[in-house]
């Protein structure tokens, strides 16, 4: 569904993406792993168009979305949903207003219909009766779940997750993982997640790719990744301090 070809991006003299190639299959959960600062966020921001690459191509259903005009790209964006690392909920809006925001902006639905859809999506992520709370009143895990409800409110074809479990306790992380699996199965959506949470990766991923020094150095199913002899990958998976990955 999404093909990334020779994607390159530098910021001043720092090369962040150095020719990334990756195929993301439709209706599957693809997880991109890698150390902090390896450009995972930069990579997914390219997919959704928040950052333009220096060179390379991103094909969505064989259409190169890198060269699209602003208005064409705007219509493509409606096929995407995104859960940000800090959830990125709007501080000035209630939970219901946050989740229903895309519907209010892009559809002619009545307030009553929007609220019904909002409640249904919130129920899907395990939240009931919090529609009138403000984001500041929510815990980290609740914010992520509200963020997920907002990301799927328009029934997008692709949902992107930026570090979905960062800052959460292990139980809440596992809960987010289950929600990802449940919602993906129910909605048949393509999920792309970036994380350095190995437990989450093994729990949810259909396909895993590791980004290191601007390139994909290993990819495959969870089993293939576990059995891949690449020393960088294995050190990352085991969390060892000894190996080619140095702590700087």
């Amino acid at each position, binding site marked *: 569904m999404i093909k990334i070809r020779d994607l390159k991006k530098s910021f001043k003299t720092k090369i962040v993406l150095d020719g990334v190639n990756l195929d993301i299959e439709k209706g599957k959960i693809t997880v991109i792993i890698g150390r902090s600062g390896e450009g995972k966020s930069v990579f997914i*921001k390219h997919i*959704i*168009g*928040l950052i333009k690459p220096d060179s390379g191509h991103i094909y969505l259903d064989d259409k190169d979305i890198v060269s699209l005009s602003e208005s064409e790209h*705007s*219509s493509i*964006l*409606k096929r*995407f*949903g*995104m859960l*940000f*690392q*800090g959830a*990125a*909920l*709007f*501080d000035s809006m209630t939970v219901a207003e946050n989740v229903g*925001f*895309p519907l209010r*902006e*892009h559809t002619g639905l009545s307030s009553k219909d929007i609220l019904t859809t909002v409640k249904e999506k919130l129920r899907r992520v395990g939240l009931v009766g919090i529609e009138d709370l403000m984001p500041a009143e929510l815990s980290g895990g609740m914010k992520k779940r509200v963020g997920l409800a907002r990301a799927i409110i328009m029934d997008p074809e692709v949902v992107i997750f930026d570090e979905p479990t960062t800052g959460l306790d292990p139980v809440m992380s596992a809960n987010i993982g289950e929600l990802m699996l449940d919602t993906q199965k129910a909605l048949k959506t393509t999920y792309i997640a970036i994380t350095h949470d190995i437990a989450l990766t093994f729990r949810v991923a259909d396909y895993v790719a590791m980004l290191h020094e601007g390139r994909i150095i290993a990819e495959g199913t969870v089993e293939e990744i576990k059995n891949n002899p690449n020393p960088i990958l294995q050190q990352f998976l085991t969390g060892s301090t000894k190996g080619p990955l140095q702590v700087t």
Partner: protein
Amino acid sequence: MKDFLESLGKKVEDALLTAGRIGIIFGQVCHLAFTPPFKLRNIFRQMEFVGVNSLFIVLLTGSFTGMVLAMQSYIALNKFGAESLVGTTVALSMTRELGPVLTGLMVTGRAGSAMATELGTMRVSEQIDALYTMAINPVKYLIVPRVIAGVLMLPILVIVADLVGIAGGYLIGVNMLDINSGVYMARTEEYLQMSDIFNGLIKAAVFGLLISLSACYQGFNAKGGAEGVGKCTTQAVVMGSVMVLISDFLLTTFMF
């Protein structure tokens, strides 16, 4: 000497880059302001924030400035036996200069700083990116209503500042300085032209544009965490105030 020139060159380059970027945002705002859909609710909310919520501070500033102006001008005019012109001095100073400039500076400090802080916080917490990913143009959604509110509300606030300033001057002139009420008003009406008021209002609209644009620009370009937001707020107030003062000089020269 070489270092000094280098640092000067860098500052000039940065200033030109900033001016260029603000120019680009201004161009986008002009285009998007007339592109449907029109979110009137957002515009009214910003008008309330910039205008209604600034009313108290403008009333305070305007009235006290008018009163002080009456006392100070009385000292000078008394030396020439021209006390009756205190009202004229107050009215002309308020409408042409002090009303717009002081209101501009007050709105920069109150609303401009708040705009920069809000947008800066939205930037660093990825809320602006979130808008983009929801196919909502952040410039149209966040900057256009604020700029429209600035351009529309500053002139209204200046009318208020002018009125209370003149009223403050009248109170001091008539009650404290013993100037005849009729003479005070007659002189004011005699010399105050509609063009004086309009010149002030044109200045106010330009100030509103510059204050909101610089605040939004700084907020949109905030980087880092809380420190970045604090920095962008400070820069918004400094930039807004400097732009008010420089544009005041240019507009006064042009409309003199």
